[in-house]
């Protein structure tokens, strides 16, 4: 892949950071994982919409539902972080704004994803 840059470009220190392929692959791997998870989640939402708090607690206390919900949340937040990162990198070119938005994206995804996973585990493990 190094050949995509001219020797002069690399000499100027503006060459590839060599991380791109990893990011690209991570977005694809998470998207493949999300196909079955999302289809399962759609039916989970229909089930949950027809029940109340105690029904929801009973539903998420089942090991399979708890684990799949944790996986759905974790993989979704990884995938949406990667996707929003690409959008910011595509449209925002001012270093300060770009850095601020990339950090915001990372912090929002890390915080909300962690809160969701912890909440699911807390309820599933009987802490509710």
């Amino acid at each position: 892949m190094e050949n995509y840059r001219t020797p002069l470009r690399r000499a100027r220190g503006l060459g590839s950071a060599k991380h791109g392929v990893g990011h690209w692959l991570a977005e694809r791997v998470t998207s493949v994982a999300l196909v079955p998870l999302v289809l399962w989640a759609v039916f989970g939402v229909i089930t949950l919409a027809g029940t109340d708090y105690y029904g929801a607690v009973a539903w998420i206390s089942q090991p399979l539902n708890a684990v799949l919900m944790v996986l759905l949340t974790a993989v979704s937040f990884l995938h949406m972080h990667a996707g929003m990162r690409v959008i910011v990198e595509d449209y925002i070119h001012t270093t300060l704004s770009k850095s601020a938005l990339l950090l915001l994206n990372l912090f929002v995804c890390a915080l909300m994803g962690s809160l969701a996973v912890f909440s699911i585990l807390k309820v599933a493990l009987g802490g509710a």
Partner: protein
Amino acid sequence: MTETTQGPRERPLSPHLMGWRPHATMVGSILHRITGSALYGGALILAGWALSLAAGPDAYQAFMELLGSPLGKLVLFGLTLSLFYHLAKGVQHLFWDSGKGFALPIANMATIACFAFAVAATLAVWAIAWMTGAL
């Protein structure tokens, strides 16, 4: 030899977005990004659901009432449509990533199939939700 003092030559520019007649794959690509951004909000709603469940019966009921309100249902309907479109288009992108499906008739047909799938799957899911009394 005067060129050396004029700096880099002007590079050719790619055609501007507005210079294109809209076509299926272009609309499909733009929608993929828009629906992805909408699903970002959807995932935050999912996180809010988990948080409200962990907060107890009152918080959970309040959150579910918010989702069940007319505005909440409208948002959920839009998110369902976004989800199924992004899902289908994402699968098409996986085929593209493997180097397949680039022939123009196939790319156009597959993109239109993504639109059709999104609408059909959304209506099917909401019909099932309505029939099971979830709405």
